[in-house]
């Protein structure tokens, strides 16, 4: 999240993607970094034991939300 905050500060719209395990941690950290609205998208958890196909399905499922987070469509 630090990276996205820094890049936004440099004028680059950004989003970070994490698993749903991170939802509450991301809320806390975004507030502490002074950027509560920092764009983030969450995939299902877990990640580590997923097959390649399952990972690609996660990506497909998250894509629309990711694009929405970095555009004003």
């Amino acid at each position, binding site marked *: 999240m630090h*990276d996205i905050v820094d890049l936004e500060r440099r004028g*680059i719209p*950004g989003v970070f993607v994490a698993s749903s395990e991170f939802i509450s941690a991301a809320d806390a950290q975004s507030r502490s970094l002074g950027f509560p*609205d920092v764009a983030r998208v969450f995939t299902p958890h877990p*990640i580590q034991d997923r097959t390649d196909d399952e990972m690609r399905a996660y*990506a497909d499922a998250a*894509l629309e939300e*990711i*694009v929405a987070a970095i*555009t004003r469509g």
Partner: protein
Amino acid sequence: MTTSVNRFVLDPTNERRASTMERVGRPTSLKGLTVGLLDISKARGDVFIDRLEERLSEMGADVKRYKKPTFTKPAPVDLRHEISVNCQVVIEALAD
């Protein structure tokens, strides 16, 4: 040593900016834009990111891949600078 001392400056502002930071303006679409895909170097993330790259390319975006050395720390400042110079938007993945 001179260099490292000089690469830090003292913040001239009231240092309140962080508390009011808001998202910068977004483009209307990614078509024709350079999209930075920043891999945080966690296992399995690469498969996810490969797929995002495929899909984003299909949408007409020009994808540039970046990888930070470790997910445990912020990306090195030079990498962040490089991304900010070369990309119009950035996606960082995948934390779990």
